[in-house]
């Protein structure tokens, strides 16, 4: 940001007050352009977030979790966390996958076991088919 400019932020608008000396507007113009570009970038980012496909959501989510895991396990930021944190974090991915696998099997198994068998519906339908055929014959349908 140029020293000769002042940025005033209003709620709905940002105003650049620039010092123009000797008809030289460059400092002022550069400031305006910078603001416009970063505004557009912010807007674009929001649009991408809102229209992310499920695939991108997964990629994003896994990246975030993966980064957090790598950070703790390999101490990427040199935070020197207690050994306990690293010991717990290291097997987490495999552990979570196994838990998810077991949950999935249990859920699908439960749902198959409790899948309603509509005996009554079938019997009712058979009876109604008979009734319908009779009635239609009376009404003149040639079957």
């Amino acid at each position, binding site marked *: 940001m140029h020293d000769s400019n002042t940025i005033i932020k209003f709620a709905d608008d940002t105003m650049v007050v620039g010092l123009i000396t000797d008809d030289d507007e460059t400092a002022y113009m550069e400031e305006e352009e910078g603001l416009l570009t970063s505004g557009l970038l912010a807007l674009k980012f929001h649009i991408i977030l809102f229209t992310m496909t*499920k695939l991108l959501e997964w990629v994003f989510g896994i990246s975030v979790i993966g980064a957090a895991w790598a950070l703790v396990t390999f101490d990427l930021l040199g935070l020197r966390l207690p050994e306990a944190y690293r010991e717990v974090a290291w097997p987490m991915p495999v552990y979570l996958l196994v838990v998810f696998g077991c949950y999935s099997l249990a859920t699908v198994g439960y749902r198959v076991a409790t899948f309603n068998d*509509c005996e009554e*519906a079938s019997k009712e*339908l058979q009876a109604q088919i008979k009734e319908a055929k009779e009635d239609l014959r009376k009404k003149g349908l040639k079957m």
Partner: protein
Amino acid sequence: MASRKGSQQSRGDGDKYSVLLPTYNERDNLPLIVWLLVKYFGESGYDYEIIVIDDGSPDGTLEVAEQLQKIYGEDKILLRPRAKKLGLGTAYIHGIKHAKGNYVFIMDADLSHHPKFIPEFIGKQREGGYDLVSGTRYRGDGGVYGWDLRRKLISRGANYVTQVLLRPGASDLTGSFRLYKKEVLESLVERCVSKGYVFQMEMIVRARQLNYTIGEVPISFVDRVYGESKLGGNEIVSFLKGLLTLFATT
């Protein structure tokens, strides 16, 4: 207010329900499904019309449809035949072109979907003002008749994978017994590009994208066809391909 005439009262509340019946070789089933539709709509008093979209069935389905038209009237049975078997999406588009209803039912014509649920669909739609109401075999007292363990396992397994990947907000995505507001059906059909099972899934996924509200009604699905056509490897593969496409593009 309309007057009561025994069990056939006309509600006269301005809503009309168009029932789309795409048919292919349903000569035996068509009269039965029409009879059931007439019965349940008649008893409930809602205004309706049945639109038969026959794709040039070689078994004479259209001829039977014409007989039904004579019996029940041309205002109740509408025929929108096509020359040959084209997709389901285009059948819907073709069917609703001249539909007079402001609501549209889609269902199978092979008696796997029972019209007795129609008043429940309508009740549910009015209860929540839903843009679409989907019949579900997987919730409440919904269920299936005529499936063995293998078929149930495939069905539940596929549905689980779909739920995890797409998080669609509806329990039964491949079901095709649904009630739509007419303008909602129109706007969805023109956006959907998939075929077969996946088409019905895509309709729900796009509905969510467009922030349409979805209600559910448990239904019983009586499968009389499964015995003849087992669900083979080919269908499973094309289902997975369609699912992954939806996963990557919506």
